[in-house]
């Protein structure tokens, strides 16, 4: 196969980037191949910064040679002789196995000078990331490899034109690369036989949260969310009610029960206010407060903002402050509108994908769970009884006066005669819920 045949096969296969954006991989390689320049780089994004995700790690640890093979193929296709694997330092086993694999591949002449006796040469380096989420963003990743503070650069120019050290570069995610050798081996048609027309192939998800079977799952694209959650994932534990599923990592969105039949595809997820991301999938049940979930994810991105551009540096922080006040019972009329206004501007003006998508969890929860926001703001009430500062415990007349609760309460908040009605002093109560668990008569309720 000539380089252009490799690219054609990849284009025909319809493979799209598994790192989040879903950009067609064949087209990306073609752009880099056509970009003028003697020196080009191939980069593998193995930063896997989404909390709770370990799809890439499983490939790095389980089949590092698939990655090396794909990167060499990429080098061949785009005209590059040098590659970098940027892997997070928190993956020591992955790093070790990559090192071994690279050594082995060199020994076998599968990378290095004149691979398999041809005039094609390609060699690889490993670079360790320090665990900043933003360093998974492709331009920040390259800035980091160059030895500078990991901060994104404006695009355009795109990496295919002006990438690592200013040279044309092709960057792909681990899982994207892992698909390539199989596609070259089995042909584009084989690959297109799986998944959907717009999103062929399979996708690995890290299933977590309130679900019976947690862990990595691989399903064909187009599988409905319901199948993944109820069939593959085995449903929600303890007979609780499903509330939403968060996809796309910290900057994805929350999908409500009414949309569970949406097929998992890049475009369909974006249409409903979420995204594929790298494959995080967190299931939420009736006990999860959606305002607090939004707050939780935004808290992550606020922490991980690199601080370069104004909207993300200051704007996401201001959004978080508003959410903090809502969940603590100090929400004000107009807060939802303020959140929406900030979200719109941040998504429109932030320099990189981190800021541009950071408001997603907030917007999607406002979109599908606005009543929960209203309850927090207007009634100072958390419908899921999750937000501690809005929670009150009460002992109903089911109380038999067994004194179990009073004895367990670490705050000494419960008083009552033996065999008499007990009461909770809400001022003293620290909402540890110990009394609820102790009461055999279900007399203590959250209001």
């Amino acid at each position: 196969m000539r380089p252009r045949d490799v690219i054609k096969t990849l284009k025909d296969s319809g493979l799209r980037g598994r790192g989040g954006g879903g950009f067609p991989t064949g087209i990306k390689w073609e752009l880099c191949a056509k970009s003028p320049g003697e020196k080009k780089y191939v980069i593998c994004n193995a930063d896997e910064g989404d909390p709770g995700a370990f799809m890439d790690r499983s490939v790095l640890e389980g089949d590092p040679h698939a990655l090396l093979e794909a990167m060499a193929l990429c080098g061949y296709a785009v005209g590059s002789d040098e590659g970098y694997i940027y892997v997070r330092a928190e993956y020591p086993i992955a790093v070790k196995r990559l090192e071994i694999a690279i050594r082995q591949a060199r020994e076998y002449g599968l990378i290095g000078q004149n691979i398999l006796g041809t005039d094609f040469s390609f060699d690889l380096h490993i670079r360790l990331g320090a665990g900043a989420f933003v360093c998974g963003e492709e331009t920040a990743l390259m800035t980091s490899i160059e030895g500078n503070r990991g901060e994104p650069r404006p695009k355009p120019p795109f990496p295919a034109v002006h990438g690592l050290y200013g040279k044309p570069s092709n960057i792909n995610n681990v899982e994207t690369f892992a698909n390539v050798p199989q596609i070259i081996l089995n042909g584009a048609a084989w690959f297109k036989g799986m998944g959907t027309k717009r999103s062929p192939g399979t996708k690995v998800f890290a299933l977590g949260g309130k679900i019976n079977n947690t862990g990595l799952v691989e399903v064909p694209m187009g599988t409905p969310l319901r199948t993944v959650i109820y069939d593959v994932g085995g449903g929600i534990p303890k007979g609780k009610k499903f509330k939403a599923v968060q996809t796309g990592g910290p900057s994805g969105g929350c999908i409500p029960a009414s949309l569970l039949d949406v097929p998992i595809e890049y475009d369909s997820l974006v249409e409903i206010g979420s995204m594929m991301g790298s494959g995080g999938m967190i299931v939420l049940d009736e006990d999860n407060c959606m305002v607090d979930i939004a707050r939780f994810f935004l808290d992550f991105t606020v922490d991980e903002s690199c601080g370069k551009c104004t909207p993300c540096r200051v704007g996401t922080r201001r959004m978080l402050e508003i959410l903090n006040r809502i969940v603590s019972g100090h929400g004000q009329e107009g807060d939802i509108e303020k959140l929406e206004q900030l979200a719109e501007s941040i998504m429109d003006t932030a320099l990189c994908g981190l800021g541009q998508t950071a408001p997603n969890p907030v917007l999607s929860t406002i979109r599908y769970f606005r009543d929960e926001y209203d309850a927090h703001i207007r009634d100072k009430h958390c419908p899921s009884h999750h937000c501690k500062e809005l929670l009150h415990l009460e002992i109903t007349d089911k109380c038999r006066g067994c004194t179990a609760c009073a004895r367990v309460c670490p705050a000494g908040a419960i008083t009552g005669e033996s065999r008499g009605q007990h009461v909770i002093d809400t001022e003293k109560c620290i909402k540890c819920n110990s009394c609820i668990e102790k009461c055999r008569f279900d007399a203590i309720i959250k209001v």
Partner: protein
Amino acid sequence: MNDMIKLTIDGLEVEVPQGATVLDAARKANVRIPTLCFLEEINEIGACRMCVVETGARTLQAACVLPATQSMVVKTNTRRVRHARKTVLELILSNHDKKCLSCIRSQNCELQRLALELEVTDDNAFTGERIEYPLDDLSPSIVRDNNKCINCRRCVSTCYTTQAVGVIGPIDRGFETSIETAWDTPLSETACIGCGQCINACPVGALREKEESPKVWKLLHDPDKIVVVQTAPAVRAALGEEFGLPMGTNVTGKMVAALRRLGFDQVFDTDFTADLTIMEEATELIGRIKNQGVLPMITSCSPGWVNYCETFYPDFIPNLSSCKSPHEMMGAVIKSYYAEKAHILPKDIAVVSVMPCTAKKIEAGREELAANGYPDVDAVITTRELARMIRSNGINFLNLKDEDFDNLLGDSTGAAAIFGATGGVMEAALRTAYEIITGETLQALDFHAVRGLEAVKEADVKLGSLSLKVAVAHGTANAKTLLDSIRAGEKTYDFIEIMGCPGGCVNGGGQPIVSAEERLRHDPRIYRAKALYAADAGMTYRKSHENPGIKRIYEEFLGEPNSHKAHQLLHTHYTPRNKYKYREKSVS
């Protein structure tokens, strides 16, 4: 490949060359796009997001870094754009101290101006946590106030790119990001050279000079002190801007008048000692050439450069001319020659230097610069500080009648006038060296090869039978390029002029601040230098050795150039400096 790119901006068709940004195109179409972090060629990082425009892309794009492309359709004033820009600005304000009333940059602040222009009606539109930062005011030159910093990084790029010093940068992440030194030490304990270029780059009041005007007021109000002031060549070419005059207006006469109004007892001209510097330096150069001394000799009148040399290129210390900088020579001469003539004790004299420079503030504190047992110079104020003093004294600057410098140390030549621009010291030195060496009168006085803004200028100059290889660099990054080529043995020279600031003193760290936008229209390095070259062309005397006052001071007092007395008063020495000053402390 000179295909032009055609695009439309707000419906206006415009053509720009390949490589132009949308901001360039907008300027060409006379469409104004607000900017904050953008500083042409120095800071083009797209960080503040003030300049966003609509292009049909999914999100808005930053015009300052967006390459213009064929048939692009750009909209700069839609609802979406206006809303976004205003939100960005309000977010900046939500983390800014907004103390305009006591801010040194009020009325010359890019943030304040934008707030007015974008019709911000509620500067508390977004309230929230603000981080309080301590003031870093330990450096004799620079004060950093992060409570006003908007994280645009113009200072960072300037320090790194144009000055090749790089002692400030962003630390921490997200909301906590702030511009700091390494390990958060005070700027005074870093390798900072005090050039003040970061101040000139800052759009707001987060960076300023360490003010000495309070000290000067105190001296002026002290009945027991004779307070003598001197003004550097570049000050007169820029001071007028502070009072609304066009860039490049020479205001020497009004400046002298204003200084008298302020109450200074004598108003002397640093141009006088610029001429004196040339006498000493040209003689030193000829001496080094004749006696196989260390070459190339490098000028030493820019304290930013001297600090840089001592810190980053200590191996070039033997190359530095031993001449003090002109204002230090003036201080030494005032406290000896003038003191004798006026029958005043040196201890009763205070010398105030009005300088375009912040590094001179560090320089004045050097212990070795105290020829008469007292510091040669007691206080250094910048051009900006002088303007503030004039305003606060209620002086109507524009209506002042021109006055002349005081006689004794007030004569000057065209050679001294051009000291303020890059290449000027070299040119002045060559004019005098020529006549000393050849004994003939120089006919073509203008050495065009050493003028202008090229990064490093080189020339082969014939002084009679002697031919000299000379070079000129301005801005310490260019100095670095030049010195590296010498270190590597790629280049050899006999005489080099280096000024710490880009363009020379006319663009010093103490000069009136020109906004990023105004810089695009009027480059202060060009306009202010023009004023100096025009002054030179119009002077009776254009060579330092022709200055009657200079002839007099050698006759009456110093003897001849490089005499013992001259050495004692006008020359100095240098010391290698550690890049990590805090280490010196922890070791000792």
